[in-house]
């Protein structure tokens, strides 16, 4: 059996009727802003007589501030919906009586398209009974399959199942403390008590937490709120506890903690199809934990992956967030051969360079000093003339005292620098 609750006027909020209906059964479906359908199967034990259930619905609706609730109970969804919309008060329909009770109701309750409504008006149809009395074959010839379908609806015949509206998922866990706590060590144990059940709830619903909000109600009445996100959603309590504690180390609450609330932003669990022939990838949870422990370096811009900039300016790079991603093997691409590279001096070390015949013969800088035994250069480069221009003349020099260095003359300032050691 199905029930329908219709409110005239519109309820204060779209969720009012859903919340009211859920007091009776979890299987409810919203049909527009003013009507909600209920699946009443299985409620016979609580309400042996449908009339009692109907009256209970009416009373509950009035208790929620609905002035003119209309309730209908019938053995089909459409019959219950149309009767609740078309008849005042409570209507209870026995099986097989739907067409009879629907007959006098206006055709507009079907919610027809304007063209169909106009057509039926020109045919002289005014009520659901008028439509139900027409032959199905004739309707099919004139309207196609839509005709017989509308006729069945007018007779209260409907085989479609109720599609229940899912209640909003809520993943949070709170803990009220008997005694205020101070410091991170006792908080670590308490967080475990809160995060364990939250993680289980998420996992049981096939969810992960994309972000976690920690609210600490302090003794002084304020709320210390921190929100964390990870590189990949996870429901592991241990990972979240580590991340929260690391975050609280650098953002500690200013007073003792009276209550703890943790709210998770749920997301569907990540589905990853691994290949047997691909190398093992880093665990996102462990990566998040490690990066959280290195936040002192990453937040200062001193930790991450270097990325070269598309420019000729020497040594141009940026530090990006370390996020290696899935490895894609590039078959056939050879690994570069080992080669001497530069150990860069940051900033380049100012140098005094003696020059003979345009070539450096002696270099003196912090940590680098000696006569030049051999050299290669000059190699000139310049760029960014439209922005911050640079122009340099580079030399690779070998010193008698040992060591290979790259030095350059800034041609704009006519100054020498040691860029780095070739090692």
């Amino acid at each position, binding site marked *: 059996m199905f029930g329908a609750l219709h409110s005239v006027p519109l309820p204060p909020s779209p969720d009012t009727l859903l919340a009211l209906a859920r007091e009776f059964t979890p299987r409810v479906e919203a049909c527009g802003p003013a009507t909600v359908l209920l699946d009443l199967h299985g409620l016979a034990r609580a309400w042996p007589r449908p009339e009692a259930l109907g009256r209970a619905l009416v009373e509950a609706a009035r208790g929620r501030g609905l002035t003119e609730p209309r309730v209908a109970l019938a053995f089909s969804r459409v019959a219950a919906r149309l009767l609740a919309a078309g008849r005042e008060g409570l209507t209870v329909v026995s099986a097989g009586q739907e067409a009879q009770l629907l007959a006098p109701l206006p055709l507009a309750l079907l919610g027809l398209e304007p063209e169909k409504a106009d057509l039926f008006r020109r045919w002289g149809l005014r009520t659901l009974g008028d439509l139900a009395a027409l032959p199905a074959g004739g309707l099919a010839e004139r309207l196609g399959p839509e005709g017989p379908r509308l006729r069945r609806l007018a007779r209260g015949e409907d085989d479609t199942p109720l599609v229940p509206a899912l209640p909003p998922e809520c993943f949070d866990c709170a803990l009220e403390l008997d005694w205020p706590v101070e410091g991170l060590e006792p908080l670590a144990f308490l967080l475990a008590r809160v995060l364990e059940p939250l993680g289980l709830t998420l996992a049981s619903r096939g969810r992960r937490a994309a972000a976690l909000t920690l609210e600490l109600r302090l003794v002084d009445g304020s709320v210390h709120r921190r929100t964390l996100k990870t590189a990949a959603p996870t429901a592991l309590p241990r990972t979240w506890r580590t991340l929260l504690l690391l975050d609280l180390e650098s953002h500690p609450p200013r007073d003792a903690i009276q209550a703890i609330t943790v709210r998770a932003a749920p997301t569907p669990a990540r589905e990853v199809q691994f290949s047997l*022939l*691909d190398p*093992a990838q880093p665990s996102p949870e462990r990566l998040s934990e490690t990066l959280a422990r290195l936040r002192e*370096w990453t937040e200062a811009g*001193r930790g991450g992956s270097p990325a070269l900039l598309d420019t000729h300016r020497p040594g141009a790079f940026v530090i990006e967030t370390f996020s290696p991603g899935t*490895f894609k093997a590039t078959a056939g691409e050879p*690994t570069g051969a*080992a080669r001497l590279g*530069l*150990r860069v001096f940051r900033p380049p070390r100012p140098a005094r360079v003696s020059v003979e015949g345009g070539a450096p013969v002696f270099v003196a800088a912090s940590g680098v000093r000696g006569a030049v035994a051999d050299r290669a250069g000059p190699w000139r480069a310049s760029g960014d003339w439209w922005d911050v221009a640079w122009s340099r003349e580079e030399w690779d020099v070998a010193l008698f005292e040992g060591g290979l260095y790259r030095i350059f003359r800034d041609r704009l300032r006519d100054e020498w620098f040691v860029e780095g050691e070739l090692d």
Partner: protein
Amino acid sequence: MGSPATVKAALEDLLRHQRLQADGPPLRGEDRWPRPLATGVREIDGLLGGGLPRGQVSEVHGPVSSGRTALAVSVVAQTTRAGALAAWVDPADHFDPTSAAETGVDLARVLWLRGGAPATAGLGRAISVAGTVLGSGLFEVVVLDLVGQAGEARRLPGATWIRLQRLIELQPTALVLLADAHLAHGPSGASVALRAGAARWSGAPGPGRLLSGLELEARSGRQLARAARFALPVSS
């Protein structure tokens, strides 16, 4: 898709190729422990019996321009191109991404931790962050660049290296110390001493000349008895 027999033969070829290829990337679930980390320099790999041992602290040391950095970068290149992750702990901020990229390092798979800022200065912080990185178990090779800091490194407590060794002894991670002179290595770790030979120059002295390479000598083993000579080209 071809016939089942063709598909089966192709799959067996692929598995044979992947499993028997010595330098192929380690597969999911495969025990990487027995495989040493190749350095990418054939002579060094021959000296070390295949490469740097996993789960051990190894060192690469030598004077200025002896190829220490090149060898470490080459190890990182081999590691990252195979799909694993590498970390470079750089308290003095000397790492050059441009040279590394030319050697074949996949920079996106390198975590570079640079000193030189107030929040990250000091050798103690670098050792601490190296411990964090090693303990994560995410990285196949971690390079700790201590070149130019020999004095400060020698003042570190002796237990420092033992503690770092313990962090990785049950993991397939190699810690490589770069230093000016011998510093420390694990009980089964490698110690490679490098020495520069003659520089190679292209062409006659004058404009247009290039530094094309450097001859090097590497020694390893008990009392550095084993030696190998090789040459490395220079990055552009």
